[in-house]
Each structure stands twice: as C-alpha cells, then as structure tokens.
C-alpha cells in the first residue's frame, strides 16, 4: 500500500469512529474529551527550548519538523541509515501500529515528520540515537511518526525525548513502529517531559523475530493528560521483551499506561516493571494485558506495577489482565498501591536525617528499581538527575 492510500484509510477510519469515550472498555478511566473538543492548529515555528544532547547522534524536531541545523545527520557509520521519515517510506510503515486506535489513525492520516532508522544486518551501533521533540507553539497538534527497523543480529539504542514549554496547551500524538529481526536488539527509551498542561499520547509497537530482544523504558514526568500504549508482538521463538516504566505525577496530571504483550509463539519471555509516584491530585491508570496464545508454550511472563502515593488526593487504577490459552506457561503479576514506610522514615531520622530529606531518599529509592535496569550509562545518569529534580520540586 502506498502512503497516500494508507493515509486515506486512516482518515476514513478516524472520521467513522472519532475519539474513544469512557464507555470504551480500553478508555474507561481516561477521558480524552479535552483533546476531542479542542481545535488544534498546525502552524510551524522554530523552537527556543533548551535540551541536552545525550549522544553525538542527535535528531531535533522543532514543533513537529526535523531541524537540519540543530541535528547531526551526516555522522552515521556505514549500515546505519537515519533521517526524516518523509524521505524514506518503508513498505511496512503502518502495518504494525494498532490500526483500530483513533490516535494511531489520526497520526497516520496527519503525520508530517518523524524519524526513520534502519540498521543493516549485523551492525551494532553502541552510541545511542537521541531523538528530541521540542514543542512550544500553544494550540498546535504534532503527530511525529517514527520507524525503526534493524536487520538480523543488529543492535541499536534509541532515546525519544519529548520536551514542551511550561504552561502551554498543545497535543503531541506520536507513533513509533519497531521491527526487530532475528537476534537483533533494540533498547528503546522514552522520556516524556511535556508541558504540565499539554496532551501527550503515544503508541509504541514492536515486533520481535527469533531470539530478538526489545526493551522499552518509559519515563513520564510531564503532560497534563496523556497515555502510553506500549505493545509487543513476539512472533519468533526465543524472543524477549522488557517493558519498564516510571511515572512521576503531581498537580492534576493524569497519565495512563496500557501495555499489551502478545505471545504468539513458544519460548518467549516478557518482563514488565512499572512504578508510579503520585503527589497532590494526580491520577494514574495502569493496564497490563498479557496474551499467551495457544502455541506459546513455555512462555515466561512477569508483570509488576507498584505505586507510591505521597498524598491522599492521588489515585491509581491498576488492572492486570492475563489471557492465557497455552497450558505450560509461567505467568505472574502483582500490583501494589502504598504510602511511604513510616518505620523506615523514623530509622533515617534516628541517624540524623531530617524527614524532608528522608522522604526524598525513600521516594528516590522506590523509583531507583526502574532506573537500575537502564543499561546505557549516559541515559541512566540523565534520568537519575531528572528524577532527583522532580523529587526536589515535589518536596518543596
């Protein structure tokens, strides 16, 4: 299917179905009418926002458009093709991301830029590719579309970071499709630091071949109303998917995570660790669906969602969903919602650590389990700092 036809189909789907409502089972706890009821513009502007490049391979999008000036596009080694998705339309584009989703349809119909990454067979790129999406036009809608495909035995680390100007409202609606061929490894990070009054939605969908590894770490700090759909399809034996996340929410932030792990074949692993820290009146939804199909024997799936509430006004809905059609599998899940451990706080106090510092230490310790899993040292240090900054802000 060519791009024109793909876009037309998506537009038709969106016109016919519109945005989901809370009557829709998958959107029960997240009301997107504030997005549906806003008219967004699509004017383009350069951006003044600051960012910190995490790598020498950095692509910068200013209000939806790739900036050749701010990006470093020519430095890539042989076998690594990176550029604007408008210049490289892969035939598989749009075949992976959930076509039933209104947000995916809106993106497919309307995307005007995004990243294309293709790594040739056997090429291992150690340096991360950092994608920075800057948003500082109030009232605008952005539909970044990213496409990542790596060859057999290839390896890449991609960091997607979304940064917005404070206190403006706009809508980011991103879609990232990831094809991991046999024995390939993709480490994918998503850092969401949008404006606290922005709407942010993204679908990340990955397909894993035999013995392929895909990891996704989603760190959410910003956004007023948002949702991540992280979806993995294990279609080759021996595949391994790791989906970890950390959401740090305060004020009236509402953030929803929907994981969907589809075990279609035998001998695959999936591990999901999601942690949330909520202050003030923040709300979080976590829905982790694991589907183990009939042929997916010896599946090993572990899911855990733990939440720390720093205030009585904060609220979490956590919904694990296991659907198992194979009989020889190991699937576990657990969810907790709790407060800071007063006994631990007292213990710290008896060592001279004041309660404000003690709370920050215990809260950081809670988040640290997710950060500890991050392999890339530069990404880890950067995220540790972001988490520290957030904690300082909420403990003020």
């Amino acid at each position, binding site marked *: 299917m060519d791009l024109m036809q793909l876009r037309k189909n998506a537009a038709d789907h969106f016109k016919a179905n519109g945005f989901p409502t809370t009557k829709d089972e998958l959107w029960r706890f997240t009301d997107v009418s504030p997005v549906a009821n806003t008219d967004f513009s699509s004017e383009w502007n350069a951006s003044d926002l600051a960012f910190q490049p995490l790598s020498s391979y950095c692509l910068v999008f200013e209000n939806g458009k790739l900036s050749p000036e701010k990006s470093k596009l020519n430095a890539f080694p042989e076998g690594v093709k990176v550029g604007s998705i408008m210049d490289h339309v892969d035939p598989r584009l749009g075949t992976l991301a959930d076509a039933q989703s209104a947000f995916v349809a809106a993106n497919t119909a309307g995307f005007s830029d995004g990243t294309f990454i293709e790594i040739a067979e056997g090429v291992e790129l150690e340096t991360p590719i950092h994608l920075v999406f800057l948003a500082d036009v109030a009232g605008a809608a952005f539909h970044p579309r990213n496409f990542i495909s790596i060859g057999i035995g290839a390896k890449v680390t991609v960091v997607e970071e979304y940064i917005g100007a404070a206190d403006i409202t706009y809508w980011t609606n991103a879609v990232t499709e990831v094809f991991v061929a046999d024995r390939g490894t993709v480490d994918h990070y998503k850092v969401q630091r949008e404006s606290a009054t922005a709407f942010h939605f993204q679908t990340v969908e990955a397909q894993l071949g035999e013995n392929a590894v895909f990891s996704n770490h989603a760190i959410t700090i910003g956004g007023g109303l948002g949702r991540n759909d992280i979806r993995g399809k294990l279609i080759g034996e021996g595949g391994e998917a790791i989906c970890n996340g950390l959401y740090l929410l305060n004020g009236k932030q509402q953030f929803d995570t929907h994981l969907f792990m589809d075990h279609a074949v035998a001998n695959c692993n999936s591990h999901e660790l999601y942690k949330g820290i909520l202050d003030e009146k923040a709300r979080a939804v976590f829905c982790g669906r694991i589907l183990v199909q009939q042929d997916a024997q010896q599946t090993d799936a572990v899911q855990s969602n733990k939440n720390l509430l720093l205030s009585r006004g904060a609220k979490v809905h956590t919904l694990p969903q296991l659907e198992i059609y194979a009989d020889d599998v190991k699937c576990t899940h657990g969810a907790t919602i709790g407060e800071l451990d007063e006994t631990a706080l007292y213990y710290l*106090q008896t060592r001279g650590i004041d309660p404000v510092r003690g709370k920050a230490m215990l809260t950081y310790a809670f988040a640290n389990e997710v950060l500890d899993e991050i392999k890339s040292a530069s990404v880890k240090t950067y995220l540790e700092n972001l988490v520290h900054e957030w904690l300082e802000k909420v403990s003020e």
Partner: protein
Amino acid sequence: MALLEIKNLHASVAGNEILKGINLTINPGEVHAIMGPNGSGKSTLSNVLAGNEVYEKTQGEILFDGKNLDDLVAHERARAGLFLAFQYPVEIPGISNMYFLKAAVNAGREYRGEEQLDAMDFIDLIEERKKVMNIRDDLLERAVNSGFSGGEKKRNEIFQMAMLEPKLGILDETDSGLDIDALRIVSDGVNALRDPERGFLVITHYQRLLDYIVPDVVHVMVHGQIVKSGGKELALELENEGYASWVGEEGI
C-alpha cells in the same frame, strides 16, 4: 553535668501506660545496663529517648547533655549525639548502606558546623571503622539492612554508631540472636568507643554481654519501673536467681 538525666518518666503507647516513673542518671564515661524480663518496657524507654512519636511521654523530664529532649525531634536528638542501636534494625530497600551513612554522617557534621565530608574523606573514614566491626564491602554496597542476616544487622548498627560517634549510645538487645563470635565483635566495637566523654545504656536480657561490655551500674526494670540498681555483680545475681523476686504476684 550528667550526660543523661531521666526524672519520673511516664510514657504510654496505644493508650497503655508502659513506663511508670523511671529515674536514671548517666554521667559521661559511664556504662549503664538495664536488664529485665520481656515486656517490661526496655524498648519503650529506648524509643522514647530516640524520639519515636508512636510513644507518648506523659510525665517527667529528660535532659540530654543539658538539653530538654522535649525540645528536640528524633533527627535533632541524633544530631545532638544520641544514638539508638535498634533491637530490630529496619530494612530500607533501594538505599545503599554507603549512601545512607554518608547522609547521616554529613547531617551530624552540618549540625556541629563542620565541613561536609567529600567522597574521598568519607571512604577513608569507612575503611578505618569497618575493620573493627568486620563489615564486608558487599554489605556497604547493599541496601540498608536488606536481606542482612540477624548478626549482620546488629553489626551494622554498631558500625553506624562507630561512624556517627555519638555522645550517648543506647544498645537495645544488640546481643540477642548473636553467636559468640559475633558477640565478641560487637563488644569489641563498643569497647573501642568507650571514652571518658561518652556514655552507654546497654539493654540486655542476658548477663553474657556484660562479661564483654563491663558496666558501671546495672538496673533491673520490671513493669515499667526500675526496681533495683547496683554494681556489675547485680547482673550475676540476676543470672542465678532470675527476676522472680521482683516480678510480684501478677507474674512476668
């Protein structure tokens, strides 16, 4: 001036009066032991001293190093030099022992108007102090008390005390659950800290510990009161005769 002066202390927890008029004075350089049956209020006393807000002081006065403890909350008491080695040390997943110790040491230094220790100075201090307590490096890197054995937790408490150099160390049944080797290590650690300026309150169930940490005064606590005080020979007497004669009709 006395290091610790407790006058007619009454304290309650969950609405029940546990301490019923404790009087106790510890001078700098002295080691006092409190012995007593289970449930007599020994841990309640140590928690009231440390500033655990679950325990409510209802009457009396506590002066520590000339300061009224009513004016200080738990972390201020710690910074002023009061240290409690817990009967049940708390596990804190996600915070490394090293990081925790550095925060604690520097909190005390800040209070005393001393410079913060940087990473290098801190490591030097650790290296010097860890030997006495036989603390392995992996225990320093692991999360505070998390998954530590009973003996490791107790050694870690005394190690923290050695790092923080308090004016008063309160040891709440530090010996319980220790084998003879661990008991010796813990006692050596405490004895190394004995100093004419420093005092200790050693709470124990067994006389055995007091063979290693020799006290100046032994108190017997029963039903929230100190029923007898004497020299170190009192501990031996208790070992031989038990608490029966003090416990009274209602039993232990």
